[in-house]
Protein backbone atom coordinates (compact mmCIF):
# COMPACT_ATOMS: atom_id res chain seq x y z
CA UNK A 1 0.00 0.00 0.00
CA UNK A 2 1.61 3.18 -1.18
CA UNK A 3 -0.96 5.85 -0.30
CA UNK A 4 -0.93 7.35 -3.81
CA UNK A 5 -3.66 6.56 -6.30
CA UNK A 6 -3.05 5.94 -9.95
CA UNK A 7 -4.96 5.13 -13.09
CA UNK A 8 -3.11 3.86 -16.14
CA UNK A 9 -5.22 2.95 -19.13
CA UNK A 10 -3.91 1.74 -22.43
CA UNK A 11 -6.32 1.68 -25.38
CA UNK A 12 -6.36 1.70 -29.15
CA UNK A 13 -6.23 5.21 -30.64
CA UNK A 14 -9.80 5.13 -31.96
CA UNK A 15 -12.53 7.67 -31.48
CA UNK A 16 -14.78 5.08 -29.81
CA UNK A 17 -12.20 4.66 -27.03
CA UNK A 18 -12.08 8.26 -25.87
CA UNK A 19 -15.40 8.36 -23.99
CA UNK A 20 -14.87 5.12 -22.02
CA UNK A 21 -11.38 6.25 -20.95
CA UNK A 22 -12.76 9.62 -19.94
CA UNK A 23 -15.52 7.92 -17.95
CA UNK A 24 -12.95 5.77 -16.18
CA UNK A 25 -10.95 8.88 -15.28
CA UNK A 26 -14.07 10.54 -13.95
CA UNK A 27 -15.02 7.53 -11.81
CA UNK A 28 -11.42 7.37 -10.52
CA UNK A 29 -11.55 11.03 -9.47
CA UNK A 30 -15.02 10.58 -7.99
CA UNK A 31 -13.71 7.77 -5.80
CA UNK A 32 -11.01 10.18 -4.63
CA UNK A 33 -13.69 12.69 -3.65
CA UNK A 34 -13.08 15.39 -6.25
CA UNK A 35 -15.71 18.12 -6.49
CA UNK A 36 -18.01 18.51 -9.51
CA UNK A 37 -16.13 21.42 -11.05
CA UNK A 38 -12.79 19.62 -10.87
CA UNK A 39 -14.33 16.44 -12.29
CA UNK A 40 -15.58 18.43 -15.27
CA UNK A 41 -12.38 20.38 -15.83
CA UNK A 42 -9.96 17.49 -15.55
CA UNK A 43 -12.00 15.15 -17.74
CA UNK A 44 -12.50 17.95 -20.28
CA UNK A 45 -8.75 18.55 -20.56
CA UNK A 46 -7.92 14.84 -20.69
CA UNK A 47 -10.67 14.33 -23.28
CA UNK A 48 -9.08 16.93 -25.54
CA UNK A 49 -5.64 15.37 -25.27
CA UNK A 50 -7.07 11.91 -25.96
CA UNK A 51 -9.01 13.21 -28.97
CA UNK A 52 -5.80 14.75 -30.32
CA UNK A 53 -4.00 11.42 -30.14
CA UNK A 54 -6.88 9.83 -32.04
CA UNK A 55 -7.03 12.63 -34.62
CA UNK A 56 -3.43 13.58 -35.20
CA UNK A 57 -0.90 11.05 -33.91
CA UNK A 58 -1.08 8.27 -36.44
CA UNK A 59 -0.87 8.31 -40.21
CA UNK A 60 -2.42 4.96 -40.98
CA UNK A 61 -5.28 2.89 -39.59
CA UNK A 62 -3.06 0.03 -38.48
CA UNK A 63 -0.68 2.38 -36.67
CA UNK A 64 -3.55 3.22 -34.32
CA UNK A 65 -3.07 -0.07 -32.54
CA UNK A 66 0.07 1.38 -30.97
CA UNK A 67 -2.55 3.11 -28.92
CA UNK A 68 -2.89 5.91 -26.47
CA UNK A 69 -2.27 5.83 -22.75
CA UNK A 70 -3.86 7.87 -20.01
CA UNK A 71 -1.94 8.11 -16.77
CA UNK A 72 -3.50 9.92 -13.81
CA UNK A 73 -1.69 10.17 -10.52
CA UNK A 74 -2.92 11.69 -7.27
CA UNK A 75 -0.66 11.80 -4.23
CA UNK A 76 -3.30 13.22 -1.88
CA UNK A 77 -2.27 16.73 -2.83
CA UNK A 78 -1.44 17.16 -6.52
CA UNK A 79 -3.08 15.63 -9.55
CA UNK A 80 -1.01 14.97 -12.67
CA UNK A 81 -2.46 13.56 -15.87
CA UNK A 82 -0.40 12.43 -18.87
CA UNK A 83 -1.78 11.45 -22.25
CA UNK A 84 0.80 9.67 -24.38
CA UNK A 85 0.85 8.14 -27.84
CA UNK A 86 3.50 6.57 -30.07
CA UNK A 87 2.79 8.73 -33.11
CA UNK A 88 4.46 11.91 -34.28
CA UNK A 89 3.52 15.40 -33.23
CA UNK A 90 2.34 17.52 -36.15
CA UNK A 91 3.71 21.00 -35.89
CA UNK A 92 1.72 23.25 -38.15
CA UNK A 93 0.08 26.65 -38.26
CA UNK A 94 -3.39 26.55 -36.74
CA UNK A 95 -6.26 26.26 -39.20
CA UNK A 96 -8.87 29.00 -38.90
CA UNK A 97 -11.81 27.94 -36.72
CA UNK A 98 -9.85 25.09 -35.21
CA UNK A 99 -7.17 24.62 -32.58
CA UNK A 100 -9.50 24.75 -29.59
CA UNK A 101 -8.22 21.53 -28.03
CA UNK A 102 -4.90 22.70 -26.62
CA UNK A 103 -6.36 26.11 -25.82
CA UNK A 104 -8.94 24.38 -23.63
CA UNK A 105 -6.27 22.29 -21.97
CA UNK A 106 -4.24 25.42 -21.23
CA UNK A 107 -7.27 27.18 -19.76
CA UNK A 108 -7.89 24.33 -17.34
CA UNK A 109 -4.51 22.98 -16.37
CA UNK A 110 -2.18 24.79 -14.00
CA UNK A 111 0.71 23.59 -16.12
CA UNK A 112 1.04 21.78 -19.44
CA UNK A 113 4.14 20.40 -21.09
CA UNK A 114 4.25 18.60 -24.41
CA UNK A 115 7.09 16.17 -24.93
CA UNK A 116 7.58 15.03 -28.50
CA UNK A 117 10.84 13.11 -28.37
CA UNK A 118 9.29 9.64 -28.49
CA UNK A 119 5.68 9.94 -29.63
CA UNK A 120 3.68 12.73 -28.02
CA UNK A 121 3.21 13.05 -24.28
CA UNK A 122 0.97 15.82 -23.00
CA UNK A 123 1.75 16.32 -19.32
CA UNK A 124 -0.88 18.23 -17.39
CA UNK A 125 -0.92 19.33 -13.79
CA UNK A 126 -4.07 20.58 -12.18
CA UNK A 127 -4.45 23.17 -9.47
CA UNK A 128 -5.89 22.05 -6.13
CA UNK A 129 -7.62 21.85 -3.78
CA UNK A 130 -10.09 19.60 -5.51
CA UNK A 131 -11.50 17.37 -2.86
CA UNK A 132 -14.87 17.85 -1.26
CA UNK A 133 -14.31 15.53 1.70
Amino acid at each position, binding site marked *: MSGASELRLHCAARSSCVAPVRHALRAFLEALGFDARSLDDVTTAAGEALANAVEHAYGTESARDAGVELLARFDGDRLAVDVADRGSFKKRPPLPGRGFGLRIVR*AVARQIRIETADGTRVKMQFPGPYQKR
Partner: protein
Amino acid sequence: MNGDDGIQRIRLTGELEISRKREIRDAFGIVPGAKAALVDLAEVTYADSTALTELLRFCVTAQRDGIPIAVVIRTQQFARLVQYAGLANAFRIFEEPGEALAYLNECVDA
Protein backbone atom coordinates in the same frame (compact mmCIF):
# COMPACT_ATOMS: atom_id res chain seq x y z
CA MET B 1 -38.30 22.88 -39.71
CA ASN B 2 -40.31 21.81 -36.68
CA GLY B 3 -42.66 24.78 -36.37
CA ASP B 4 -44.52 26.99 -38.86
CA ASP B 5 -42.68 30.05 -37.59
CA GLY B 6 -39.85 29.65 -40.09
CA ILE B 7 -37.45 28.78 -37.27
CA GLN B 8 -35.48 25.61 -37.76
CA ARG B 9 -34.85 23.46 -34.70
CA ILE B 10 -31.69 21.44 -34.26
CA ARG B 11 -31.54 19.31 -31.15
CA LEU B 12 -28.70 17.12 -29.94
CA THR B 13 -28.44 15.30 -26.63
CA GLY B 14 -26.00 13.21 -24.60
CA GLU B 15 -22.25 13.40 -25.01
CA LEU B 16 -21.19 15.44 -28.03
CA GLU B 17 -17.69 14.19 -28.59
CA ILE B 18 -15.24 12.92 -31.13
CA SER B 19 -16.93 9.58 -31.81
CA ARG B 20 -20.07 11.44 -32.93
CA LYS B 21 -18.26 13.95 -35.17
CA ARG B 22 -20.03 12.86 -38.36
CA GLU B 23 -23.48 12.87 -36.76
CA ILE B 24 -22.87 16.32 -35.27
CA ARG B 25 -21.69 17.70 -38.59
CA ASP B 26 -24.72 16.25 -40.39
CA ALA B 27 -27.11 17.74 -37.85
CA PHE B 28 -25.72 21.22 -38.41
CA GLY B 29 -27.17 22.38 -41.71
CA ILE B 30 -29.69 25.08 -42.58
CA VAL B 31 -32.80 23.75 -44.34
CA PRO B 32 -34.08 25.74 -47.32
CA GLY B 33 -36.51 28.45 -46.30
CA ALA B 34 -35.40 28.71 -42.70
CA LYS B 35 -35.38 32.28 -41.41
CA ALA B 36 -33.53 31.43 -38.20
CA ALA B 37 -32.27 28.41 -36.30
CA LEU B 38 -32.57 27.29 -32.73
CA VAL B 39 -29.76 24.96 -31.69
CA ASP B 40 -31.08 23.18 -28.61
CA LEU B 41 -28.17 21.61 -26.72
CA ALA B 42 -29.87 21.83 -23.32
CA GLU B 43 -29.63 18.10 -22.82
CA VAL B 44 -26.04 17.71 -23.86
CA THR B 45 -24.26 16.16 -20.86
CA TYR B 46 -20.73 16.68 -22.15
CA ALA B 47 -19.14 18.43 -25.10
CA ASP B 48 -15.61 18.57 -26.50
CA SER B 49 -13.83 20.71 -29.05
CA THR B 50 -15.14 18.53 -31.88
CA ALA B 51 -18.64 19.73 -31.02
CA LEU B 52 -17.43 23.32 -30.64
CA THR B 53 -15.71 23.27 -34.01
CA GLU B 54 -18.84 22.02 -35.78
CA LEU B 55 -21.06 24.47 -33.91
CA LEU B 56 -18.79 27.36 -34.78
CA ARG B 57 -18.61 26.35 -38.44
CA PHE B 58 -22.41 26.24 -38.55
CA CYS B 59 -22.84 29.60 -36.84
CA VAL B 60 -20.29 31.34 -39.05
CA THR B 61 -21.96 30.06 -42.22
CA ALA B 62 -25.44 30.96 -40.99
CA GLN B 63 -24.43 34.43 -39.91
CA ARG B 64 -22.78 35.03 -43.27
CA ASP B 65 -26.10 34.10 -44.85
CA GLY B 66 -27.95 36.47 -42.54
CA ILE B 67 -29.66 33.70 -40.62
CA PRO B 68 -29.79 34.36 -36.88
CA ILE B 69 -28.81 31.51 -34.59
CA ALA B 70 -29.54 30.94 -30.92
CA VAL B 71 -27.80 28.21 -28.96
CA VAL B 72 -29.23 26.70 -25.78
CA ILE B 73 -26.59 25.44 -23.38
CA ARG B 74 -27.40 24.44 -19.85
CA THR B 75 -24.72 22.01 -18.70
CA GLN B 76 -21.98 23.72 -16.75
CA GLN B 77 -19.25 21.66 -18.37
CA PHE B 78 -20.38 22.80 -21.81
CA ALA B 79 -20.80 26.43 -20.75
CA ARG B 80 -17.27 26.45 -19.34
CA LEU B 81 -15.90 24.73 -22.45
CA VAL B 82 -17.19 27.63 -24.54
CA GLN B 83 -15.44 30.07 -22.19
CA TYR B 84 -12.18 28.12 -22.21
CA ALA B 85 -12.19 28.09 -26.00
CA GLY B 86 -12.70 31.85 -26.05
CA LEU B 87 -16.00 31.53 -27.91
CA ALA B 88 -18.33 33.22 -25.43
CA ASN B 89 -19.10 35.93 -27.97
CA ALA B 90 -19.08 33.83 -31.11
CA PHE B 91 -22.79 32.98 -30.86
CA ARG B 92 -25.80 33.90 -28.75
CA ILE B 93 -26.17 31.51 -25.85
CA PHE B 94 -29.31 31.03 -23.76
CA GLU B 95 -30.10 28.77 -20.84
CA GLU B 96 -33.77 28.28 -21.77
CA PRO B 97 -35.22 27.32 -25.17
CA GLY B 98 -38.05 29.82 -24.51
CA GLU B 99 -35.61 32.71 -24.22
CA ALA B 100 -33.76 31.58 -27.33
CA LEU B 101 -37.01 31.42 -29.28
CA ALA B 102 -38.08 34.87 -28.11
CA TYR B 103 -34.74 36.25 -29.29
CA LEU B 104 -35.05 34.58 -32.70
CA ASN B 105 -38.64 35.77 -33.16
CA GLU B 106 -37.47 39.29 -32.50
CA CYS B 107 -34.70 38.89 -35.08
CA VAL B 108 -37.11 37.48 -37.66
CA ASP B 109 -39.74 40.18 -37.07
CA ALA B 110 -37.25 43.03 -37.16
